[in-house]
């Protein structure tokens, strides 16, 4: 199985082919145990939240992760932040093992990977002023204290994300949702990170404000050479901002490739169904697009199907799918990585 990005780029020019790999994730696994009993807790099973996810992220690149609720995308974010410890697998940050570092060294590395949360209403402490919220990282990382003083740096950051630096003493409730998300972004940027994990950063915002925040994220990326992992359930948003896209289903990557490959020639049946289900804001397309309506709901991650996890809802499934877990790899006729025995391009459902 090849994860080298150059090996699957036939036909698609990859501007990041030679860029430095900032994050190298291999076979990441996280299962949450399910227990029974009050005094003597017995393990009766496990929720397989993330089950063998591998990818690389390069400097200046945006990797979008799409998936429905329960697909494990937020658990993946927590693992990459080391807010949760994985059961197995490895994460290397610029060649350094991120999972085994401890103490002072971990604190230093933590600075380089930051996160922006989904809900700007609950992720900011209502009793702290904006200056305190954005300045807090400097209190924890004393050696990263800016030479010009914390307050001046916070004002700079406010200006950078398009907020008025004079509002440094205001409290979160005095800002709108979009402005609060900008505060979250400023806090994420405070320690000059290399990687920012954006966990549904625009999902809670109105459409007209969503565009403002997405443009800001793009500007900051260009200016500071940031790499993003952009997690979202909205496929249009992910396409807009991402260079490469990974599609998750029940804790595994179903398909991984450049956005052109994923959106114009999806090869995994799940990606095809997902794309065909997205309503397009153009009434003239009504009835002209092939729509694959999946039956039922995704199975529980506590009891995933054997073999391919999508097989219970898949129209292509055969006996082989129940027995053999399909690997995420380049398959005949396609250039992206797909975890399906019968992966084949389907342009009928492509989003042009």
């Amino acid at each position, binding site marked *: 199985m090849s994860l080298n990005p150059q090996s699957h780029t036939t036909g698609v020019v990859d501007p990041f082919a030679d860029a430095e790999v900032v994050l190298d994730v291999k076979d990441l696994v996280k299962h949450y145990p399910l227990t029974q009993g009050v005094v003597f807790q017995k393990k009766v099973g496990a929720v397989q939240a993330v089950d063998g996810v591998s990818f690389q992220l390069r400097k200046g690149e945006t990797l979008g992760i799409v998936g429905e609720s329960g697909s494990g995308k937020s658990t993946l974010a927590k693992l990459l932040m080391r807010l949760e410890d994985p059961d197995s697998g490895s994460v290397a940050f610029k060649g350094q093992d991120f999972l085994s570092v401890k103490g002072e060294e971990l604190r230093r590395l933590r600075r380089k990977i930051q996160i922006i949360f989904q809900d700007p209403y609950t992720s900011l402490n209502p009793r702290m002023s904006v200056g305190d919220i954005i300045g807090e990282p400097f209190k924890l990382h004393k050696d990263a204290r800016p030479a010009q003083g914390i307050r001046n740096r916070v004002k700079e950051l406010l200006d950078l994300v398009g907020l008025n630096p004079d509002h440094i003493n205001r409290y979160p409730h005095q800002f709108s949702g*979009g402005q609060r998300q900008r505060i979250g972004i400023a806090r994420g940027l405070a320690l000059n990170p290399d990687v920012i994990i954006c966990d549904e950063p625009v999902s809670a915002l109105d*459409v*007209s404000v969503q*565009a403002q925040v997405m443009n800001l994220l793009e500007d900051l990326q260009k200016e500071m050479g940031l790499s993003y992992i952009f997690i979202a359930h909205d496929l249009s948003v992910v396409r807009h901002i991402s260079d490469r896209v990974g599609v998750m289903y029940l804790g595994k990557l179903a398909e991984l490739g450049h956005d052109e490959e994923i959106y114009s020639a999806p090869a995994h049946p799940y990606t095809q169904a997902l794309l065909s289900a997205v309503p397009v804001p153009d*009434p*003239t397309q009504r009835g002209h697009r092939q729509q694959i309506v999946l039956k039922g*709901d995704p199975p529980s991650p506590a009891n995933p199907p054997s073999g391919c996890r999508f097989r219970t809802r898949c129209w292509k499934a055969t006996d082989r799918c129940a027995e053999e877990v399909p690997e995420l790899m380049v398959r005949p006729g396609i250039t992206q990585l797909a975890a399906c025995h019968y992966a084949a391009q389907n342009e009928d459902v492509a989003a042009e």
Partner: protein
Amino acid sequence: MTETTTTSGTPLLEVRNLEVEFRSKTGVAQAINGMNFTLHAGETLAILGESGSGKSVTAQTIMGILDMPPGHITGGQILYRGEDLLTMGEEKRRKLRGMNISMIFQDALSSLNPVLPVGWQIAEMFRVHRGFKRKEARAKAVELMQKVGIPAAEKRVWDFPHQFSGGMRQRIMIAMAIALDPDVLIADEPTTALDVTVQAQVMGLLKDLQAEHNMGLILITHDLGVVADVADKIAVMYAGRVMESADVFEIYARTANPYTKGLLESIPRIDGAGERLRAIPGLPPPLTDMPAGCPFSPRCEFATELCTAERPALREIVPGHRSACHYAEKIYAMSAEGTEEARA
């Protein structure tokens, strides 16, 4: 002010110059400021707007479930088959609610009673409104659950709401809403809390049921994609007023309002990556402190002194297409040109 009727006869539902405000100690919020629309049988009207635009308040006012106080209906009429709901007696109105006009809410989990089985909740509709006996009502509940596509309905009729997935719960809400065969169904963000693959299932179900019962459907949403997929006509709301209303094909091809234009340009498209999004600058005005002129003027790239001084009325630009903008003709010509270019 009445809309040109495309379908003959008295409309099923007609809202005329509806005004609603919320009064509190800190001031008066103008939630709805002159809302007008008509709905015919079998038709789907989408009310599109961002949070705070007044779309949900419109739905609550039609249903008669607006909290009063703090809400006050300060003007207008809501005509159901020519009869004004707002002046009707409470007893009569309660009979209409559920029987003739019913509603689906966004969050099915918090709209269903968590301590009662779903079958009981669906059957309640028949017991209360139709005077059915328990057994008959239960049989009806099972029948409805099958109709909305809940597998093993016979077995699951005594399950509680938390035992169902999000999509299934929304189906149960739909079953309750269509139980008494209403003429008007109001769906307030019915798929916002659902995943896309499940959203497609639920929207498909709603469309089928609408066709089968020839219902008038009011779809309240912020999603321009869902609207393009199912609506016949649209009313775009901003800060409590209708900015533009027209046939769905017309509005996406040739908008006559800068707000609609801005919305359409600011959404990322799944069928085309790359280009920078054209965001609408600024924020909607607070409802307690509305600008004197056009509510969109502080964010509008076409705004002039006229716009800040005088509030534009909703007027007809071409037959069936209304816009509340002083420069509607100009915007209309601009976007018509843009569409021609895109086609060429």
